[in-house]
């Protein structure tokens, strides 16, 4: 029996619909199997595509002979990178900081000249069914010149290292994650370092001189995968007029359209992208893999083609997050005040530039007020799959380093770890290590909630048990967004918006519209529009969807409200200023007998001037950063090193939780993914760069049987830049768990494990090393 509340909302404002927990509009379809995902697309005459992938982690492609495959019965098309133009190496900004070097992007989709990781796509076949396509792959003859592999940052950064790309140019701008290409006449030495940059604040040397205590450490983390259930899938169909329709399970169908436009040199007006339901993305479905290949095959075959990855392909050929190495040093006074901090973050990007090291640098020191700071970020190439975004990209490994150092500092000082964080926590006006001032955030409130939670004061009983605490920061994102509200004659409202629904955003948008209009959320029918049905909307990423599309919905609702007031004024023959709109009822300000409900007026819309629709396109600033603090209790088996998570509480500022159950779901999901990252998950590569555990049998993610219920506390410190105070909540919840687990394991065993995952073997090795065994 619980003696505490498992899920708490420390609410800061009361609304009618916002803050309630309605059943999601798409729920019934999803639990009954009616919802249409990418693999549910089936078109007349549709072919099935399969991709031939490199068996080598690094090799030059000397020749590709597709003739036998092309001649095979049931095969309609075979494509390679020769079937499209090679784009320039120019970096393009495709909204929301999604920079793409199209040459690298194109070469990752279909290898050109070289393969740079095992599983790299080389050619593709479209055939009548998957088996025929699979057999045809075996008929493609690829001649490789196998090259030495470079698998880790240490080897990759050595002088004379094997080069993943001979023409790579080192950039020095953290914004250019996409990497640069040397010009043909640039004969300078090659490198695997795609980007190297730094941030400085104050005087780092002087800062460390002021320190009474200095803590240093080095951490390492392995690549891990997002583990979304639904593999990447894309279907393409060309029309007779040369236009292209794509069906995609993606985090941004407009981004898919724009990328396809550039890759295929086709105007955006010729491409329509249909958004399918998405079975998880976590950042990694903001890019294209299958869609361009399906489009090339469809063009060559003259038939619609679907290309779907297998689970092994998802592991080997999509984008895990980076392996990382971080050297960190912090200095504090004997009272616990931080005076200086420096860190060198090296993130492995895989076979093409673009690790999330800028995100790591952006987040590592941001929870704290540190007057003197130095950060160096390095993006380095290795012969592994190209890294993709994963929920708060870059921040998790950074927090693993910083938050374990903070725990060591608290231990050294004999301070409570939450008190240490409260003493140093960032608040509105704190200057961040990267320069800008912190806007209003709820870190103090989050830490206070953690300190006051019954979990934190509960005694830890039993041997080999310990408690850990850690915090985390994520800046959150925003971008352009669109929404359209269409009033139906029966008083319901059709809401079309452009953000892909990853996590229940449809109901969150419906709630915001219902709140504005004073109607029931069940009377709003939300849908995600395709790229020809709604205005441009940037990716559902950066935890920005509920913020930015919520803004668009709010504005669309205001437009509906304005038109409703006009219609009531027309009916009553009074000035619009004399009509008030409150709680879904329009009434005369002076003659309160004159009333019309939303539903009554909706029925009269055509007779009073025509259909009522409200639409809005916005690009709001002020997404508002988010901070979280997690508490975890563990027991470590001293014989086996196995860690059991006994109790876990995730506390986070949500600004305003539109639908608290879905915010709680985010907190729980982020914590669980972080626990998997901390304890189990890891890409195992052999010395040839082959992933050896590319199935869910061997790549161990936590299941519900492994973990206790994750308790949550939603703290609400409203974001002043949103009409309802929303902050993004989907990412920061994965930032603290890695360090929280490490700190708890230290409390249980007395050893600090500085590399992930903290498997039983790693923990035993660390214990034995301390004991001199």
């Amino acid at each position, binding site marked *: 029996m619980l003696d505490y509340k498992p899920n708490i909302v420390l609410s800061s404002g009361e609304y009618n619909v916002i803050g309630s927990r309605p059943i999601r509009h798409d729920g019934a379809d999803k639990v009954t199997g009616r919802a249409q995902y990418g693999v549910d697309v089936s078109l007349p005459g549709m072919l099935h595509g399969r991709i031939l992938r490199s068996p080598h982690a690094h090799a030059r492609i000397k020749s590709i002979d597709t003739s036998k495959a092309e001649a095979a019965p049931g095969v309609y098309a075979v494509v390679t990178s020769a079937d499209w133009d090679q784009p320039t190496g120019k970096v393009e900004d495709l909204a929301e*900081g999604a920079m793409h070097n199209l040459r690298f992007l194109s070469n990752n989709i279909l290898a050109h000249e070289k393969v740079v990781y095992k599983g790299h796509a080389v050619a593709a076949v479209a055939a009548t069914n998957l088996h025929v396509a699979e057999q045809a792959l075996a008929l493609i003859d690829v001649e490789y010149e196998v090259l030495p592999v470079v698998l880790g940052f240490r080897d990759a950064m050595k002088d004379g290292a094997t080069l993943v790309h001979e023409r790579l140019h080192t950039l020095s701008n953290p914004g250019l994650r996409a990497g640069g290409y040397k010009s043909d006449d640039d004969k300078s030495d090659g490198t695997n370092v795609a980007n190297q940059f730094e941030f400085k604040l104050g005087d780092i040397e002087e800062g460390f001189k002021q320190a009474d205590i200095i803590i240093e450490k080095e951490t390492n983390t392995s690549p891990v995968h997002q583990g979304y259930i639904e593999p990447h899938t894309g279907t393409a169909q060309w029309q007779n007029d040369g236009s292209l329709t794509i069906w995609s399970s993606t985090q941004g169908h407009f981004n898919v359209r724009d990328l396809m436009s550039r890759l295929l040199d086709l105007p955006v007006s010729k491409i329509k992208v249909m958004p399918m339901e998405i079975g998880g993305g976590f950042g990694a479905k903001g890019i294209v893999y299958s869609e361009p290949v399906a489009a090339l095959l469809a063009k060559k075959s003259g038939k619609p083609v679907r290309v779907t990855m297998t689970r092994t392909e998802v592991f080997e050929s999509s984008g895990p997050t980076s392996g990382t190495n971080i050297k960190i040093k912090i200095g504090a006074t004997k009272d616990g005040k931080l005076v200086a901090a420096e860190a060198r973050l090296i993130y492995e990007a895989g076979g093409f530039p673009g690790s999330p090291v800028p995100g790591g640098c952006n987040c590592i020191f941001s929870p704290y007020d540190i007057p003197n700071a130095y950060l160096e970020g390095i993006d380095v190439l290795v012969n592994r799959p190209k890294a993709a975004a994963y929920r708060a*990209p870059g921040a998790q490994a950074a927090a693993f380093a910083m938050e374990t150092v903070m725990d060591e500092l608290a231990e050294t000082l004999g301070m409570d770890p939450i008190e240490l964080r409260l003493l140093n926590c960032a608040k509105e006006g704190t200057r961040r290590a990267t320069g800008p001032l912190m806007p209003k955030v709820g870190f103090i409130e989050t830490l206070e909630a953690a300190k006051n939670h019954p979990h934190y004061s509960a005694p830890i009983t039993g041997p080999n048990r310990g408690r850990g605490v850690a915090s985390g920061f994520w800046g959150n994102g925003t971008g352009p967004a669109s929404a359209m509200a269409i009033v139906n004659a029966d008083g319901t409202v059709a809401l079309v918006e452009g953000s892909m629904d990853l996590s229940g955003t449809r109901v969150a948008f419906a709630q915001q519209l219902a709140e504005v209009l004073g109607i029931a959320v069940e009377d709003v029918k939300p849908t995600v529009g395709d790229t020809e049905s709604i205005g441009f909307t940037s990716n559902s990423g950066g935890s920005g969807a509920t913020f930015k599309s919520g803004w668009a919905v709010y504005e669309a609702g205001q437009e509906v409200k304005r038109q409703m007031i006009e219609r009531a004024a027309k009916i009553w023959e009074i000035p619009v200023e004399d009509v008030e709109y409150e709680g879904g009822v329009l009434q005369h300000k002076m003659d309160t007998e004159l009333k019309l409900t939303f539903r009554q007026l909706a029925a009269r819309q055509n007779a009073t001037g025509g259909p009522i629709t409200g639409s809005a396109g916005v690009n709001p600033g*002020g997404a508002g950063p988010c901070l979280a603090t997690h508490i975890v209790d563990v027991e470590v088996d001293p014989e086996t090193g196995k860690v059991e998570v006994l109790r876990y509480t995730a506390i986070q500022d949500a600004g305003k939780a539109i639908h608290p159950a879905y915010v709680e779901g985010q907190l729980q999901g982020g914590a669980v993914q972080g626990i998997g990252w901390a304890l189990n998950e890891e890409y195992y590569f052999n010395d040839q760069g082959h992933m050896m555990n590319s199935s869910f049998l061997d790549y161990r993610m936590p299941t519900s049987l492994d973990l206790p219920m994750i308790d949550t506390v939603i703290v609400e410190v409203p974001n002043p830049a949103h009409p309802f105070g929303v902050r993004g909540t989907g990412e920061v919840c994965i930032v603290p768990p890695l360090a929280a687990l490490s700190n708890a394991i230290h409390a249980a065993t007395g050893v600090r494990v500085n590399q992930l995952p903290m498997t039983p073997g790693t923990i035993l090795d660390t214990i034995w090393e301390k004991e001199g065994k």
Partner: protein
Amino acid sequence: MPDVWIPTIMQKLTGGIQVVQVEGSTVRQIINNLEVLYPGTKARLYDPEEDELLPGVAAIVDGDVTQLGLLEKVNEDSEVHFLPAIGGGS
């Protein structure tokens, strides 16, 4: 005048100075006037082909990443940073 924080990588163009005061009421004017004071800075921030900030550069005005880029208003007491545009995940 607004305070403009110079990215570390560009501080060699400002003689190592991290914060400079630059006249201007929009981000565009700030960049143009910064170029007058410290030649070479504009090419690190501005894409003349697209008439936009360079890909990967975000302008932060008073703590917020501006969504208007060059068109963003800047007040007399504003603080302007040019930092990487960092994308998100879920």
